[in-house]
């Protein structure tokens, strides 16, 4: 294979891996949107909050340490050397479930049957509230997150791909981050298990039922509140997975909440209501922006990754506003 082709393949592979990361965030959006018609702006912050909480448990941080120290004049920061990663993950999941309950109890319950825009505004408020809460609980500094997923370039893949190039070419092989590969595997597992859950369990069917028709679901004995708590819990769990992946890659920091914005073009491509759409949309955006940067970037001064996804989404909106996999919008006249 010519080196040029190998380079393109490498760029595409890295694009796919980046795309998986976008998909993970987009997935959380889709879950909540499907079940309750709410565009949850706070999904990105939920990922940040989950990652912060996980690091906090892992390292044995005292929650609200800063606040406690200011009020009582103490100097506590850590209560132990930290917890085992597995225990920390379980505790974080419990925190996310509690959060889901609180969101339902104090936010959704009071906003039932209001305009979608009002619910959307409420989630913007929620996003900033949670950002502040995360800051207050665990501190604002950048934290390293290590849950034991291997990372760094794969030498094996480098060696394999080196042999693909012509012998005389000066080619070192392809770079791929093992962490990204793990992220891909985990994302696939997550999607498969969520799909199975929604197909073959009573709660899964109830989730789909509520997404389809609130009133009919009620007449079958399905409590909307319970379903909302479950959906937000699952979205919290997905946020945790996304938070772990992004946090392992680039540290747990507040810019992590901004990845939520990259999920927007992903959703426009994939459709707001489709789980496979979120995955495919993420992949298209990931590959698209990396290839664009590789080919067109040098011609127009680079840094195209900042805007490419949004422009692609804009073009998409003109031709297929419901997204690739979204339900077709048919207006009765």
């Amino acid at each position, binding site marked *: 294979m010519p080196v040029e082709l190998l380079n393109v393949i490498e760029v595409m592979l890295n694009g796919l891996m980046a795309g998986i990361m976008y998909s993970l965030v987009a997935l959380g959006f889709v879950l909540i949107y499907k079940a309750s018609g709410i565009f949850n702006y706070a999904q990105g912050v939920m990922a940040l909050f989950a990652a912060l909480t996980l690091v906090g448990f892992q390292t044995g941080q005292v929650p609200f340490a800063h606040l406690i120290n200011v009020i009582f004049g103490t100097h506590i920061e850590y209560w132990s050397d930290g917890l085992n990663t597995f225990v920390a993950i379980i505790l974080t999941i419990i925190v996310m479930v509690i959060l889901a309950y609180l969101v339902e109890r104090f936010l959704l319950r009071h906003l039932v049957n209001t305009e979608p825009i009002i619910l959307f505004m409420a989630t913007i408020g929620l996003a900033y509230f949670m950002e502040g809460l995360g800051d207050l609980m665990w501190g604002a500094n950048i934290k390293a997150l290590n849950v034991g997923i291997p990372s760094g370039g794969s030498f094996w893949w480098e060696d394999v791909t080196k042999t693909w190039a012509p012998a005389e070419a000066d080619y070192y092989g392809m770079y791929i981050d093992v962490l990204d590969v793990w992220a891909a595997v985990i994302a696939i597992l997550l999607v498969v298990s969520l799909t199975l859950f929604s197909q073959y369990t009573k709660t899964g069917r109830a989730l789909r039922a509520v997404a389809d028709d609130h009133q009919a679901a009620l007449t*079958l*004995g399905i409590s909307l509140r319970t379903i909302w708590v479950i959906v937000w819990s699952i979205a919290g769990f997905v946020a945790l997975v996304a938070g772990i992946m992004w946090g392992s890659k680039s540290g747990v920091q507040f810019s992590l909440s901004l990845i939520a914005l990259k999920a927007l073009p992903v959703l426009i491509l994939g459709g707001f209501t489709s789980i496979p759409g979120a995955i495919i949309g993420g992949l298209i955006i990931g590959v698209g922006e990396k290839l664009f940067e590789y080919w067109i970037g040098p011609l127009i001064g680079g840094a195209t990754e900042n805007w490419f996804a949004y422009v692609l989404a804009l073009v998409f909106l003109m031709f297929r506003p419901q997204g690739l996999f979204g339900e077709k919008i048919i207006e009765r006249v």
Partner: protein
Amino acid sequence: MDAQRTFGEPILEVKNISLAFGGVKALTDISFDILKGEVRAIIGPNGAGKSSMLNVINGFYHPQQGEIWFDGQKRQNLKPFQIAKQGIARTFQNIALFKGMSTLDNLMTGRYIHMHSNIFSQALWWGKAEREELQHRQRVEEIIDFLEIQSIRKTPVGRLPYGLQKRVELGRALAAESKLLLLDEPMAGMNLEEKEDMCRFILDANDQFDTTIALIEHDMGVVMDLSDRVVVLDYGRKLADGSPDEVRNNQAVVDAYLGVSHA
């Protein structure tokens, strides 16, 4: 139909129900009962309050006055999903199926109140969740056979023709195995053949599954054939109550509703 059908005690008693939306009175002082095992029709001209009555029974609306007794007990103000759990299922005038889901999944969702495995068991699909899934699947297959919809088991219901959607909706309500089944215009918009099929299913459901049925229907022929007793509403008030023959011969009903000439 048997000439002489006998029924048990009332499954539902509606006592002096009044319902108003602001200044608009939808129902005024309505009382009637539904006996275990019977097919009870609620009829009346458009805007008579039939659908409001059904919505009161299944808890979408809460009446300002009056009492509802269900299965021998006075009912408190419950939410619709709690009432469903007590054993009242319903269908809608404008079909309210889960359109993206298959016929099978729609009916399985109908089994919701009878499934009790916890979420962890479901998440792992292990133990009770698995057993329950198979056991209820069997029950649902029986209903599918009963309604003769085997061929559309896996079809997303949004793609089905109207008449079949109505049938699936009946199936979903039957799957709930409720003590009382409310049908809001089960035959609206159907052609003659579909109506005959639906009539047969309703009568068979009443007979084979021992389901007590209350239905709203516009087609008078259907009402007279199907029902054991009929209550007639007009302008939110009860006009008449009795057997189809009694109602048919009631002059007030004829004037208000049937609108036939007095020849």
